């Protein structure tokens, strides 16, 4: 190592000319590594002793704090709260974290202080070697490889090598095929929801059916089909899947403000319209309604739809209006669906058309 630290040879960049870099005579000669400047701790034994005390204090405190965290684990009840201005929170969490965190930090700070102030800080030099093999090594390796190829007969016996390649390539198939049962094929699942003719529209929290008279102009209600709740008992998964497609919003708008798209003249009841709640962009539930403009905004990517104008997109990344559910009133005067949605709800997909 001592010879490594000795004086460095001058830079030998001269008379090298390669692509993109022209090396002319260096304007300033490499003066070599700067001489080591001693630190106070190198000169003054008292300063060094002081650092020793600092470092050992940090390590000592770390040990105490670690023990303290174990005490806190048992001593502080799990649900105790600490109220101290902005530092309020769960007392168990905070004491465990503060003691452990400080202990860890002090171990680290002590070690770094030790390294910076007490360990020898004279820079030393190591030489690099190019990543590649030397010419002799290359020759040896190539020879060894060729000998191996020769002895195996891999290139001579074509039948073996080709059939082996075929065998290995074939192994790629099962790695894909065997994953087939990850999921069912889509079928028509994305095209339908559990809405159907005569299914009542119910409030999605109270599950009560809704009469037109329950809704005031300007009101928006999150709703669901009446046949959704019973599914939860049978299959919570099916329930979630059905809900993800069937969620709707019902809104009542003054009839003179509504512009009804052609063919939907009888889809609303006295200005009550029903739209899919699932955004046509990536499927977030749409929920921010602005009564005066009849705009509804998706909180995920801010697509904005005008519910008075067939829920067409007026801003944001969504490209299609929210699908509308045709409404009717049943014999008891409750809102019901005339049919399922007439188009797939939710985000676009390739086969959607």
């Amino acid at each position, binding site marked *: 190592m001592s010879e490594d630290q000795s004086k460095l040879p001058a830079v030998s960049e001269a008379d090298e000319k390669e692509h993109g870099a022209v090396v002319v005579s260096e304007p300033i000669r490499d003066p070599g590594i700067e001489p080591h400047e001693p630190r106070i701790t190198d000169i003054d034994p008292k300063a060094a002793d002081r650092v020793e005390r600092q470092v050992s204090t940090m390590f000592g405190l770390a040990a105490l704090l670690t023990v303290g965290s174990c005490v806190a684990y048992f001593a502080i009840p799990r649900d105790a709260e600490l109220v101290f201005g902005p530092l309020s929170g769960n007392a168990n969490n905070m004491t465990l974290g503060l003691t452990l*965190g400080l202990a860890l930090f002090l171990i*680290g700070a002590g070690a770094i202080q030790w390294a910076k102030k007490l360990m020898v800080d004279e820079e030393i030099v190591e030489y690099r070697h190019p990543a590649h093999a030397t010419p002799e090594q290359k020759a040896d390796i190539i020879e060894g490889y060729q000998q191996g190829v020769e002895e195996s007969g891999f290139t001579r016996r074509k039948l073996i090598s080709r059939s082996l390649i075929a065998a290995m390539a074939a192994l790629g198939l099962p790695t894909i095929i065997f994953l087939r049962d990850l999921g069912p094929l889509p079928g028509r699942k994305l095209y339908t929801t559990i809405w159907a003719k005569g299914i009542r529209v119910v409030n999605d929290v109270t599950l009560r059916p809704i009469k037109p008279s329950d809704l005031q102009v300007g009101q928006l209600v999150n709703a669901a089909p009446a046949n959704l709740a019973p599914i939860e008992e049978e299959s919570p998964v099916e329930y979630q899947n059905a809900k993800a497609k069937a969620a709707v919003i019902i809104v009542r708008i003054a009839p003179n403000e509504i512009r009804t798209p052609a063919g939907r003249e009888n889809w609303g009841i006295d200005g009550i319209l029903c739209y899919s709640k699932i955004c046509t962009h990536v499927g977030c539930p749409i929920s921010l309604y602005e009564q005066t403009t009849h705009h509804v905004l998706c909180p995920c990517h801010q697509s904005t739809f005008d519910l008075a104008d067939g829920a067409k997109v007026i801003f944001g990344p969504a490209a299609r209006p929210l699908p509308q559910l045709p409404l009717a009133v049943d014999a008891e005067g409750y809102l019901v669906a005339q049919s399922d949605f007439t188009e797939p709800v939710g985000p676009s*997909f390739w086969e959607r058309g």
Partner: protein
Amino acid sequence: MSDKDFPPPVKYLDDRLGIGKIGKKNLRKVFPDHWSFMLGEIALYSFIILILTGIFLTFWFKPSMGDVQYQGSYSLLKGLHMSEAYASTLDISFDVRGGLLMRQIHHWAAVLFIAAMMVHLLRIFFTGAFRKPRELNWVIGFTMLFLGIIEGFIGYGLPDDLLSGTGLRITQGMIGASPVIGTYLNFFIFGGEFPGDDMVPRFFTVHVLLIPGLILALVTVHLFLVVYHKHTQYPGPGRTEKNVVGYPLMPVYMAKAGGFFFVVFGITALMGALLQINPVWLYGPYNPAEVTAGSQPDWYMGWLEGSVRIMPGFESHFWGITLSWNLIIPALLIPPAFVTLVALYPFIEEWITGDKREHHLLDRPRNMPTRTGIGAAFITFYGLLWVGGGNDLIATHFGVSLNNVTWFLRFAVFLGPVLAFWLTRRIAISLQRADNDRILHGLETGVIMRLPHGEYIEKHTPIGTYEAYELTARERKLPLEIGPETDDNGVRAPRRALNKVRAALSRFYFADSVQKPTQDEIEEAHAHGHGPGDEHEELTETETFHEVTKH
């Protein structure tokens, strides 16, 4: 020498594993010292913290979407139906002692892990540490960053709370926009329709086994290569392409780097104690019909979110198919194109510069103005997309129109990077000139002198040799020249068009870069550097390639 032997346990291992030879090579291995070299360390240490706290969490977390009625100690959700995943996350947060702390350390460390990788990547980029022989290590590092982002995203998708479910729903919507295979991909990934009950257990396996395993393997190779190549160093006195100057592993870096691990762990633990992160109990269980306004992903997903948010709503419908450009472009094309460009940058620059030599001395960012400008353009592009991810929060916090913020960003993501490139490059070139001034004229002392003929000048003192060497320890880089169209025998040079492009790009890279002064210029400046001729010398001292060719 001969009578010295290892203590028995070391001897036992050396006889069987040959650890002596490894130790001989590495015990006093030299690492150069610079604060910017610790960024990668932060990433490595947060990864270790993630593994440690992650193992703790797996002891209680139940990766299942089975329906349960919550009976834990958080009274606000008592009796509610939820998935086992969400219920067990609540148990970890409220009933397991130290559970909330570990959850919060885990999440903070994840946020830090990706931030540290990204800043580390920027350091590597701006100092040219990706150049030969380290190009492949750049790609490995970049792959880890990519995996880390996926890992983090899946991680906060596991608790099955309202926010995580919303994130997964968005992802599912994006995947569904893939041409041809989108719907099938979704049905295979989610085991059917969204949400189904497969996603949490499947993503759990990916999160705790597949991706950490891959990252661990890549970290090993990454570090092995750092040791094998030996660390890069900044140019300076005594530092050459053929050596490495610094402190030995044993003892200095064992203490410094080892200590730094504890510092990082300590700080993340303090953050876990004091700073709340992802309070899932406030969001409630996932419900596909609900969402919270102001929903935000973890910071590293913000740019993708922004890319999707600012895209106008284009969609094509023809031949019975739908092409959702509003997702294909911002989510399926731009991010892969962006990351591919970044991943391949070392190879692109190597082709343009034609430089196939090994580089161990780092570039100061100012000495590669075009590269630095490109870096600034990339950061600006990324940053603006990231801002787009919070367009709603900007609108509500600053009382501006959401639509205007979005419209501004739609243009800014294209114009901002160009502006940032130009500005950064000019600043870098100015800094090069400032360096040259410092070499040629020294430091301004603030002492004004009056000459006999009445002129006032400011006295300059020359800078020290060490600093002067440091400022000139860089190469003169000139644009590539392409040879004549035909050789002596009238044969046209091959790949002429390609070489022209290459030469143009090389000119773009180096033509405006200021060259360091030559020995003659320095001598001349020092000889009559403070005389009245100063003004006129300025031009020749800081010549750029363009100026030379104009003469």
